[in-house]
């Protein structure tokens, strides 16, 4: 997945300026930068969640399998099934655990009960949650702990089997143990999924990602292998940020 010269405006104010960035297959790409730098906006434009905010417009292209996702041939519903998203605040539906995971499948038209159950189990296993919830699949999802809820949201996103998984600060509201579990999970997921993760936490970026992109004031300053960005950045601004001089 790749963005080319993507500029996105809220009204007339540009939130991101001419960003060109590739999210490589089966790699974890971390988007870092100070608050308001446009990294979340960029992430949300990858599955067109920004369409929901009135007054946004864009120029440039975002390619997924060589097709511009804004092309008329691309249906936004199909796009979002291929590019899943996990949000900063866990947001399970007030339904049972099972129904939460099955939601994307049901709206996609899957009716066969056995197939649904199979996919739910697979997704929950994929999100390393199965063992914790297998005995209470039909209890409300709101009874889970914060970390479990976030993993449930990941399972829910995995259930529709997307190619790309976007994560918007998925662990920022969690305690260290739950965060570690999520990070471990990201590690496992990257063998099957292409992942882009926005994070505030530079240690986390360093731990989980293969590539890191540094955003500043709506622009992409630098992008490269994570190790290089953190040890030997090309840009002064990147160095200042990763060494904690501002941000």
């Amino acid at each position, binding site marked *: *997945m*790749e963005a*080319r*010269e993507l500029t996105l405006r809220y009204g007339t104010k540009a939130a991101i300026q001419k960003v*060109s*960035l*590739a999210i*490589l*297959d089966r790699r974890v790409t971390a988007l870092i930068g100070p608050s308001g730098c446009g990294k979340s906006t960029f992430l949300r434009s990858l599955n067109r969640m920004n369409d929901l905010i009135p007054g946004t417009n864009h120029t440039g*292209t975002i*390619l*997924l*399998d*060589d*097709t*511009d996702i804004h*092309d*008329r*041939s*691309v*249906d936004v*519903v*199909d796009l979002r099934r291929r590019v899943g998203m996990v949000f900063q605040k866990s947001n399970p539906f007030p339904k049972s655990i099972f129904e939460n995971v099955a939601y994307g499948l049901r709206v996609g038209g899957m009716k066969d009960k056995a197939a649904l159950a199979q996919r739910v189990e697979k997704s929950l296993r994929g999100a390393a949650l199965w063992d914790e919830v297998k005995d209470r699949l039909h209890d409300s999802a709101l009874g889970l702990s914060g970390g479990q809820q976030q993993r449930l949201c990941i399972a829910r996103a995995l259930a529709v089997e997307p190619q790309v998984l976007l994560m918007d600060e998925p662990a920022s509201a969690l305690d260290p143990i739950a965060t570690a579990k999520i990070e471990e999970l990201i590690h496992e997921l990257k063998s099957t999924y*292409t992942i882009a993760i926005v994070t505030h936490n530079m240690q986390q970026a360093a731990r989980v990602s293969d590539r890191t992109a540094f955003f500043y004031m709506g622009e992409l300053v630098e*992008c490269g292998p994570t190790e290089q960005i953190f040890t030997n950045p090309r840009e002064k601004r990147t160095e200042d940020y990763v060494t904690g001089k501002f941000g």
Partner: protein
Amino acid sequence: MDRQATMEQGLTQTAFAPALSPAARRRQLREKAIAGIITLMAFTGIAALILIIVFVAKEALALFTDPAARHEASLSKMFLAQDVPAGRPAFRWQPVSKIPKVSMIPLFVGTLKTTVVSMMVAVPLGVFGALFAAEFAPRRLRELLKPVIELLAGIPSVVLGFFALMVMSTVVKDVFHFDRPLNAMVAGLGLALAIVPVIFTVSEDALTAVPRSYREASLALGATPWETAWKVVLPAAAPGILAACVLGFGRAIGETMIVLMASGNADVISWSLGDSARSLSATIAAEMGEVVVGSPHYSLLFFIGVQLFIFTFVLNLLASTWTKRVMRRLTGGAA
């Protein structure tokens, strides 16, 4: 998707664009159809309002187009004093007598009398009650007060009319030594019961919208809670309270059953509260049942309906403008 040249600027190849899949097209069409139906449904509210005024006015139109009706009930006969044999009042509403008399003045007087009485009672009760709930009442009491007011608002007006007729009329007659049990006073007090909840609720909303910081600033300057409420909170919420009163006024003008049951319904012009009164709304209710469809009298009743519609419409617009203004000022929002 695994590309080299990741940071290259500009398009390196033309995007490959197949047509939209049939499933996606069907889905998009279905979504459009659903959105269309929902939008169409939303039109009902506007349509209803337009149909109401159009069809009520349509039945009244004969007064202006039909020569016979125009003769029997001209605007001057409705609103100006008529030459009548000596010793008889010049304004009468007797549309079914041999020589129909169609002056609306007694109806206006009757409506005004009952409405003013109700406002004199309901405004202080509602506004001060709301002030108490918003400023002084302990939280528990306030949480009890609101449902109680909602219950009062939930009493059907016919029940309030019944109460005014069966209970209040006797009490009022004894207290004020009126000649007749059914009069403008009883009807007005009955109306007050119907509009107190409106005034209370809207006032309370306006008062609670006043930011806490206003109160804290005033209290910090050494004002007592009462002075804070009176000099800071009340003025800040004033347009909202005015709106509450206007809404209550509109409700009182239009309310039918209470006045119909408790006012006595005589077309007298008198400013005494002990006399019977006939309001615009009650006139429609009382006479529509016996009227010949299409007759001048019938059109007259619809014409009264048009007037009621216009009065309340204007009052409502005023009230909603003021409410919006107070909310905008207090929340500081641009919306």
